[in-house]
């Protein structure tokens, strides 16, 4: 338990030992990941596997919690690897949860990502019929076991050990492994945070109340600290009187989370061609178009703070100090287009329909997959991002953001437009630019295509123990 003692603020402290590490930590030092997609084969075997995975020990991998690293396993160091686990609704029966308990999960989780694809813009080329086979119908996917390594060797080590455990218990069948890694290097070192489109990603993450600074990742923003209940079940949310309890009994739901697991293919060739076509041909012109699409320059500097250049004199710790209203007001998008990616995914204090531009927060945990893109030698290889959008309510947070803000424009008076970077722009879309006279970027193709999705329950450690001890 952290955060107790004199330093504890008004917000109740979270029990870090009870929360899976991935939810609260950005795993900043993990450079590669492997998501094992599993089907539970044998209930007893899987429970035995789960029992091992929830026991901290020196012999075999175990689930990483959000607790501080220091005591384990190497004082003051980061662990060589991390392990986290999520379940689909289809897993709950093979896990042995009775019908009455399964019925206490939220309807969107019960229905799953395939059934609700239309609710998040997964139509046309993004529709489930085009997804990878293992995610096309949720029925066989039960578990996503996510492994993270500080380097490739550490990832192989933990993957070998975990796979041996799975086989020893005859617990599950591995449907597929999805690998990811930070692909770009400078001075022989992986450039963590740079995605295939060339942007620094993952800069904006909510600051959670009650989580100690040693755990908090990301750069401070000027918004209020977000109550735990937006991301952990059973805690107060930003909304008066509202608690997302998740499933009952409380030992199953409390301190758990939900996640929208996504594989998003990125067409970097099309992106490069678009920058060429829409810019004046200069490098600055290309970078300006890239910045208008995203709302940040590719180095991460927000356009609203630095509309003319990528702001080499703005310190990194200032890169989130804007809200479009009181800090760096930009009501018409004259500095940063209202329809740009960062203003859709997180409108902050810009007035939007519903009045809740700061109330639909998501924790993003993504990592690129596929080989680095070389602009001078396009290769046709598949590449993209794989990861999770973590929240307490898939319906109120993940689905709302995808449907109302990414896949539509009515929330901000932008008509039926879509996110210029990640939206399902088929037929081609457009991005209204602010300023006088108003201009727009037109002919936007779809740069990102959904290759798969799953709705996951990320149980607390208490809930994992509960699941491992079920007798039914």
């Amino acid at each position, binding site marked *: 338990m952290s955060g107790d003692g004199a330093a504890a603020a008004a917000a109740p402290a979270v029990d870090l030992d009870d929360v899976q590490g991935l939810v609260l930590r950005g795993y900043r030092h993990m450079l590669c990941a492997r998501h094992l997609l599993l089907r539970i084969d044998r209930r007893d075997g899987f429970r035995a596997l789960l029992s091992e995975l929830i026991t901290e020990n020196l012999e075999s991998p175990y689930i990483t919690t959000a607790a501080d690293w220091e005591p384990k396993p190497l004082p003051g160091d980061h662990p060589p690897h991390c392990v986290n686990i999520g379940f689909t609704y289809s897993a709950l029966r093979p896990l042995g949860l009775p019908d009455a308990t399964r019925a206490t999960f939220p309807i969107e989780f019960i229905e799953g990502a395939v059934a609700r694809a239309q609710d998040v813009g997964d139509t046309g080329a993004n529709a489930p019929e085009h997804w990878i086979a293992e995610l096309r119908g949720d029925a066989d996917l039960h578990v996503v076991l996510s492994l993270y390594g500080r380097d490739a060797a550490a990832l192989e080590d933990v993957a070998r050990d975990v796979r041996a455990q799975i086989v020893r218990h005859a617990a599950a069948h591995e449907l597929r492994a999805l690998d990811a890694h930070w692909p770009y290097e400078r001075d022989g070192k992986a450039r963590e945070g740079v995605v295939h489109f060339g942007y620094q990603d993952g800069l904006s993450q909510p600051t959670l109340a009650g989580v100690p600074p040693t755990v908090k990742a990301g750069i401070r923003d000027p918004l*209020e600290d977000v109550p735990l209940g937006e991301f952990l079940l059973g805690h107060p949310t*930003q*909304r*008066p*009187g*509202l608690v997302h309890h998740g499933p009952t009994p409380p030992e199953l739901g409390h301190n758990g989370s939900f996640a929208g697991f996504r594989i998003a293919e990125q067409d970097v060739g099309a992106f490069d061609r678009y920058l060429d076509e829409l810019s004046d041909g200069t490098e600055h012109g290309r970078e300006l178009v890239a910045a208008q699409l995203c709302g940040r320059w590719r180095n991460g500097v927000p356009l609203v703070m630095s509309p003319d250049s990528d702001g080499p004199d703005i310190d990194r710790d200032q890169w989130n100090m804007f809200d479009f*209203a009181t800090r760096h007001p930009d*009501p018409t998008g004259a500095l940063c287009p209202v329809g740009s990616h960062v203003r859709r995914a997180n409108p902050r*204090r810009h*007035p*939007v*329909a*519903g*009045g*809740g*531009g*700061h*109330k639909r927060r998501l924790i993003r945990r993504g990592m690129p997959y596929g080989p680095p893109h070389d602009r001078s030698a396009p290769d046709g290889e598949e590449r993209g991002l794989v990861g999770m959008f973590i929240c307490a309510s898939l319906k*109120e947070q993940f689905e*709302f953001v995808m449907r*109302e803000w990414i*896949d*539509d424009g*009515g*929330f*901000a*008076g932008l*008509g*039926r*437009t*879509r996110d210029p970077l990640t939206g399902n*722009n*088929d*037929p*081609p*879309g*457009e991005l*209204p630019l602010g300023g006088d006279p108003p201009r*727009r970027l*037109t002919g936007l193709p779809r740069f990102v295509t959904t290759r798969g999705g799953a709705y996951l329950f990320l149980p607390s450690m208490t809930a994992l123990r509960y699941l491992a001890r079920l007798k039914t």
Partner: protein
Amino acid sequence: MPDNASANPRPEPVQRPLTLVMPVKPGEGEKLRQKIEEVAAAPGNPIETALNTVGTVHFARFVLLENDTRLAVITTYDNDFDTYVNDFIDVMHKVFNTLLQFVADVPESVARDGVEAHREEFVKYVHAHDVPYVGSFYSAYPELSVAQIVPPKAPVLT
């Protein structure tokens, strides 16, 4: 409309009607009328402020029907009811709770703890008391949401 207006076709108008008709507690009609007038006349009219913040309601009015025995809330708003219902409750729960004291069949939990604490029950209640229109729902501008007609007002931070 932008050139790509057909990119995301929704077959119906973006606006939807709500005709919420609730039974008033016997003999409370006159007090309810006074309470509504009192709320509407309060400094900064909390109803107007809340609706401006949510920014999805075109028109809204209270009507007392059948000799003040029924309270009707008649509005035209954008999008699915459920999409912004939590944003609505966030800014309107005090007004709702005040008025629901005069309503006869409010679920016990909602009457006791307020709509904000039992949101799903309240939404169910609203759906059950929304009188559907007969025939068709007309809109002079089926494509236009409030946000496209007037810029959203600055949100009330809660």
